[in-house]
């Protein structure tokens, strides 16, 4: 039953996204344009005489960072944005009164956006490869494992932000955190080693730093699971703490919702 509902949620939200055609197209276009940006940034760097970053081209480095940042953006934003939209439209209440578990009704509307995120990332990697990103050394098995562990820790940020939206009924600080702090300190666009040591402390407090490092290790240098094991362990540790905490926050939010009954009244 839940599988059937998930499928219904995905198709339905695909239809909704497709109904806004211009938005739909610009998302894919934007993904391709960012590949161009990375490409020319790399050209600039090469002209300056700099060649390799972390054992590969800067272009490859950026493509991986860009793809990962898409996950960052989605994890912090997808659940809360879709939930807010449903609340504004007044469609969340009819959904909550169906024979669907509350958690699925609240988070399910993001299913398509998350799936599309994976698609967009694959497209970026594909286009990137076509114009010269080098994944010839990649250890794909390690990469997929790193990605899975990273996503489970990323998703907890999304669950936190959904809980925030339910309780406070407005945009959440998680978005700001991800968009400003995470981008600069986790090594999306440049290696964190460039940061002065005292700022690098922030980097090491973020799970994304480990995720990106392991991901680049696997994709650029073909590192094995054993070689990225340390990063994986740290990531697993973040997940072990963040995921239960975020689920707890969501449970609290749902309880709050049932006490106040204020979801449609935005």
């Amino acid at each position, binding site marked *: 039953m839940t599988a059937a509902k998930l499928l219904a949620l995905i198709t*339905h939200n695909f239809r909704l996204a497709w*109904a806004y055609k211009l938005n739909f197209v610009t998302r894919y276009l934007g993904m391709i344009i960012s590949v161009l940006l990375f490409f020319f940034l790399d050209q600039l760097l090469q002209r300056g005489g700099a060649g390799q970053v972390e054992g590969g081209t800067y272009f490859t480095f950026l493509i991986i960072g860009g793809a990962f940042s898409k996950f960052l953006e989605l994890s912090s934003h997808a659940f809360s944005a879709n939930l807010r939209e449903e609340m504004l439209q007044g469609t969340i209440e*009819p959904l909550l*009164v169906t024979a669907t578990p509350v958690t699925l009704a609240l988070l399910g509307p993001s299913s398509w956006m998350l799936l599309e995120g994976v698609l967009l990332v694959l497209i970026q990697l594909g286009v990137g490869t076509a114009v010269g990103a080098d994944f010839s050394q990649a250890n794909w098995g390690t990469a997929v494992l790193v990605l899975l562990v990273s996503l489970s820790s990323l998703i907890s940020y999304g669950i936190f932000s959904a809980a925030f939206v339910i309780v406070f009924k407005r945009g959440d600080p998680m978005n700001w955190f991800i968009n400003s702090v995470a981008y600069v300190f986790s090594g999306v666009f440049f290696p964190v080693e460039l940061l002065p040591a005292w700022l690098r402390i922030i980097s090491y407090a973020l799970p994304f730093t480990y995720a990106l490092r392991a991901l680049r290790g696997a994709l650029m240098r073909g590192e094995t699971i054993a070689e990225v094991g340390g990063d994986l362990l740290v990531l697993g540790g973040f997940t072990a703490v963040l995921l239960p905490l975020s689920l707890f926050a969501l449970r609290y939010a749902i309880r709050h919702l049932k006490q106040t009954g204020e979801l449609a009244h935005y």
Partner: protein
Amino acid sequence: MTEIIKATNLSKTYQSRGKAVTAVSHINFSVNQGELFGLFGPNGAGKSTIVRMLTTLLAPTGGTATVNGFDVVRQEMQVRASIGLVTADERSFYGRLTARQNLQFYAAMQNVPRGQIPQRIGEVLALFGLSHKADAATQSLSTGQKQRLNIARALIHNPPILFLDEPTKSMDVQTSDFVKALIRDELVNQQGKTVVFISHELYEMENFCDRVIILANGTVQAVGTPAELGALLPRRALFRLVVEGNPAALAQGWQALDGVESVTEISRGATQTTFDIALADERVWFAVLAVIEGGNGRLESYHRADDESLRRIVAHFSGGELTAENAEDAEKKR
């Protein structure tokens, strides 16, 4: 008779910015299977709060309730599978999607088997006269059409119980009559569904509901058929009459009678005067007539000016008609 809905000491106190607001207080009532049950009361009486607890959207702060035999707190999924809810919020559709696409989604979320969805959508759209709008974007529908689609959505999984929270709010009279006839004839009489109908309009319930519960300030004031509720009342009456004779003397004579609550002069012509007389018991009317005869007056015409409607019943049970002032009071209390 099966009690398909049962509320026992059901209570709800909201915590709103540190203040406790008791919206529903120790309510007891039950609804029989196949009944068209009316929930009536002035604004803020607690009607929506009761329905939101019965539909699992709100957690009660006291008491219990069962719907279709399931506890609204411990068996919320079973409750939701048994019910449809319609609220007055007619915006609540995905505006860019068609009526059919909207219904497809809710059908799936209500566990309607895939194979049956198209047929079921066809049925509910036809029932509410919306077949020709099946492939129109819902944002292009009129308010009344959306409200009908709203009821169609609540019926998509063919639930035995339907909750309607002011469903006719934005419908014109014809549409509202059409929808009410559908509810009465098709859903209740034909299909045997149980319907809980909320309204703060009296005329909506009088020749429509089997039984009505009257709420005020979160408590039950009375329950019964509209006729039973009427019988509970003292036989108060209001007459408007036009008389010839000395107005001052007549008024004085009437006011001296036992059971005359008030005498109001409405207008005075050259020979005739119009009065409103409120009586505690309609039988006092004969004494009123005797005063006219005794004073050498002449009764030109008269009629009963009160309406024998639920309005009086409510005024009786909720301690006064809802006037502009006490409506304002009620607002302030929130």
